[in-house]
Structures are given as C-alpha cells and as structure tokens.
C-alpha cells in the first residue's frame, strides 16, 4: 500500500478538513486501543480493591446496653472504639487517632494519643497536638436481639446518640 502512493492518496477524495478514510480509521483504531488499555487498567484497580475484607469486621455487636452502665466510657482497643454512655444515651467514638493512626487512650479530659501527643476532649474534638480532625463518631443501632451494634463504616455527626 505505502509503496503505491498514487493509488492510495491521489484517488482519495480529500475533504475540506483534510480527513481521508485512512487517517480516520487510524484515529479510530488508535482511540479504540487506548480506550481498551484504559479500561483494562481500570478493571485491575477494581480487582485489587477488596469487596470483602478478611480482617476485623467493620460492623459488630457489643452486647446488651445493660453491660454499659450510665456514665461509663469504655475503650475497646481491639475494636478501636470507645463506647460512651450518658444516662440512657449511647454513642461510639473512634479511638484511631486522626493524625497518623495510633490508638488514643482515654484520659481525664477526653482522649490522648501516645504517638505524637494529640489531645481530644470528651466528644473527640481536637484540643491540642497535630491531629487535623476530630475523632469520628460511629453509627450505633439496637439489633433485633437487643444488643447494641456499631458500624464503623458509617460515621455520624458528633453528638448523635442512640437512646436505649
């Protein structure tokens, strides 16, 4: 084909825009190949994003509300959550430091991070240190069997309690 420039080009009706059949097909196939490459790269991304995680479940139940008497602040380090009960209201505050992911400990004034010295008040608001954001609150619901259930995948506004 290329060896016969007369046959290829002279007879092709050169449009006003200068696009002929060969260059159009070239562009289309190039676009198609590039599109396929982008799609397959994207599907690889979907593949490596796990749909199910095998570690600790993000949603778990913590027992009956009676196990948390009013006024308790119990930090469950394995779950990385602190269960707070005031009167008949229950909430769950994250104990993962928003700075660099260490576990904050319960202190007199709220929470304190041992790694880089971030401090939070009782509601998880930052009162000092490098933490950029307050500790998130997680959704607490009452499961049909009467146990409280915490879903770490859904954050709620600070101050949202479950009334039991």
């Amino acid at each position, binding site marked *: 084909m290329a060896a016969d420039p007369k046959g290829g080009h002279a007879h092709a009706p050169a449009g006003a825009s200068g696009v002929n059949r060969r260059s159009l097909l070239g562009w289309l196939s190039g676009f198609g190949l590039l599109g396929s490459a982008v799609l397959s790269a994207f599907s690889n*991304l979907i593949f*490596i*994003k*796990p749909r199910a*995680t*095998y*570690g*600790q479940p*993000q949603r778990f139940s913590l027992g009956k509300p009676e196990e948390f008497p009013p006024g308790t602040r119990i930090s469950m*380090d*394995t779950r*990385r959550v602190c269960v707070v009960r005031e009167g008949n209201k229950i909430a769950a505050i994250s104990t*993962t430091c928003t*700075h*660099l*992911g*260490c*576990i904050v400990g319960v202190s007199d004034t709220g929470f304190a991070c*041992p*790694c*880089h*010295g971030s401090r939070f008040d009782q509601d998880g608001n930052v009162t000092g*240190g*490098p*933490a*950029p954001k307050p500790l998130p609150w997680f959704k607490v619901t009452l499961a049909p069997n009467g146990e409280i259930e915490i879903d*770490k995948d859904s954050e709620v506004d600070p101050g949202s309690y479950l009334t039991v």
Partner: protein
Amino acid sequence: MSQDTKSPSLWTNLREMPSNAWHSLFRNPLPADDLGRASTSFTNFFLHIHPVKVHMNTLRPLYTLGLGLISFFLFLILTLTGVLLMFYYVPSTSQAYDRMLDLRGTVAFGIFLRNMHRWAAHGMVGVVALHMCRVFLTGSYKKPREFNWVIGVVLFLLTLFSSFTGYLLPWDQLAFWAITVGTSIAGYAPVFGKEIKFLLLGDATVGQEALLRFYVLHVAVLPLVLTLFVAIHFWRIRKDGGLSRPAEADAPAPAAVKAVEPKQNKTYGLQGFVRGPFSKVGNVPDNTVFSWPNLIIAEVFVLVLTIACILLLSMVFDAPLEEPVNVMHPPNPAKAPWYFLGLQEMVSYSAFWGGVGIPTMFVLLLLAAPYLDRRPAGVGKWFARERLLANTIFITLVVVNVVFVIVGTFFRGPNWEFISPWK
C-alpha cells in the same frame, strides 16, 4: 582434495570437544590487540551494554563517584539476598515473626543474609539520593539527558517504595507502627487519599491483607518495574551520548589539521568532494579508551568495594528486630522508616502540607527541573559557577530535607516532643 572435505572422525570430534565447546562459548580469546578489545565488548551478552570505547572523562572517579553503579550493585545484592530469604519467609501474620526468629536461630547464614538485605536496602536509598545530587550538581540533567533525569526521579521513588514495602514484612512492632504511620500519611492525599490507603492495606487497618499486599509488591511488582526502568535508564545513557562531560573534554580539531589542496592535474571522484578536503583520521585528538579493560576494571573495583562494605556492615551490625506486633500498644513515639521521618516531622506541623502538599511539589519540581533550567552552560563540572542559582536552590532543598530527617530521627521523643539525643 577428497581428504580435505572428509568430515572428521568421531574420535577427532570427541578429542576436540572441550576446546570446541570453549570456543563456541567464548567467541574471542582474551584480547591482545584493539580489534580484540572491541569485539570483546560487543560480542559478549553481558559486556555489550558497554560502548566499545568510552570517554576518559567517564572514568574519572571523582566525577561520578561511582554512585550510579553502586546503586545498581546494591540492587543486585538485594535481589540475590531477597530471593534467598524468600525460601524461608511466609507472609502471614501468625508466621512471619517466627520466621524472623528462625532466620536467627536455625537457618544457616539466615541472620547474615537478613543483615545484608537490610543494610543494602538502607544503603540503596541513601546512594540513590546521593547519585541524584551528583547528577544535579554536575548539571548532567541538561539536554539531551532531560528524560533520563525524569526516569531517575521515578527510580528514586520506586526505591523508596520498595524499601517501604519491605519494612512491614518482619511483622515486629517497628514494622507495624512504621507502616501504620506511613500509610496514614498517604491517607492525607487529596481526593484519593483514603482510596490509596485502602488499596494499599486491603483493609481499614494494617493486618493480614496489608502484609500479603506489601509482600507481593515487594517481591514481584516493584522489582519488575524497577528492573524495567533501570534498563531504560542504562539504555538511554548510551543513546544520549554517554555520561555528561564538559564541552572542553571534546576538544575541537586543532587548527593544525591541514586542508588538502585539490591538485590541478588530478581527477577527483564525486565522493572526494562530498567528504571535503580535510583528512580527520589521526588528526583529531581521541579522548576515548577501550571499555575492555579500562571501564570493566573500574566497574569490578566498585562492585568488590560495594560487596565488601555490605559484608562488613552485616558482620558488625545486626538488623533490628523488635517485639512481635502488639496492636494494642503503639511504641511512644511511633516512627516511620528513617527516610520518611522528614515527612513525619513536617506532618507534625501540618498534616496536609507536610505529608502531601510540600512533598508533591518537591517531586514535581524535580521532574520539571530539566525543562525549567534550559541553559546549556556549566554541564559536566561539579558546582559550576554558571549554575550557581540552580545549585544553590537544590542544595538548600536537600539540606532542609536532611535537617528534617535528622530532627525526626534523633530529636523527637515520646509524644513527638523535642528531646536531646545526648542525654
């Protein structure tokens, strides 16, 4: 006549087999003349990466300091020791730490191989960084070597990432909390930060999924990508005309070269005029020497020196291994690997700017450097006067980085408070 074309007897074939096999394996005898030296370089698979002749400036030890070669040799050591360590390692949270103890206790040379792998890894991060400084301070990123500089920056980032992924594998306290802190820094990236962190860890926190992912990245993905980029890096050195050198190193043809006066009575072919009346052969100074043996000896010297250093370090210092992971008790302070402590120090001032904003700008500046600084002056000289501004900016940035790393490493104690390392 018939005697000559007769095929040799089986006996002769057997008798000559060792020498025939040898000569089919090595096409050239050890070279005794220049033709032999040239063919040694280009007929040997392992040597043909070299040019047949190499510029004398390339061989000046104080010009390159051999830093690129040392990086490559450290990568070779890391690959070899890494493959050996893979024979005993299991990427499982319940077994990884025990396997580390096994390396210490039961595996022959286990602790020694782990030491070599660890010190070569730290060394590679440092030497690659120094290599980058050398290339910048000699202005070697300039045209036509712009893109090789870009590949070099990518190689630097890949080196950091390889070292970072390897950090988690022993599954001790140091590993766990360094990666917890390190991936949290990644989480500060805008828009995709949380996604990147989740993809890296395969879970919300560092656990079995993260260990498996880091293992696959560390032993398969990153070495392959690194090898590919190293190949391109080396290939482009050749295609960009060898290592950079000052313009004076290629002295112009001296004025003594005499033009050949066309003689009236002689008939010239067309080519005689096309080539011009100058006779350059033997009249232009040749600043190149044969790669075999000049370059090869230099390389072997650097290789032996590198191996010797790593062996010595591995004999004297043991790679650290702390307590097994305890998710409940972060060490205070929890520190990232040393080359990320500058980042962590900056993160303690501002999470976004320290962890993402400034590092991203720094990398972009590095990548764009050869396209921002287009002046051709001062190439091939350390600290060239013509490059005072560029070099000053670069050295300032490097010193700031080093200071942050030193502060983060030695001057930060519990709660990331300032401490004095001399107490």
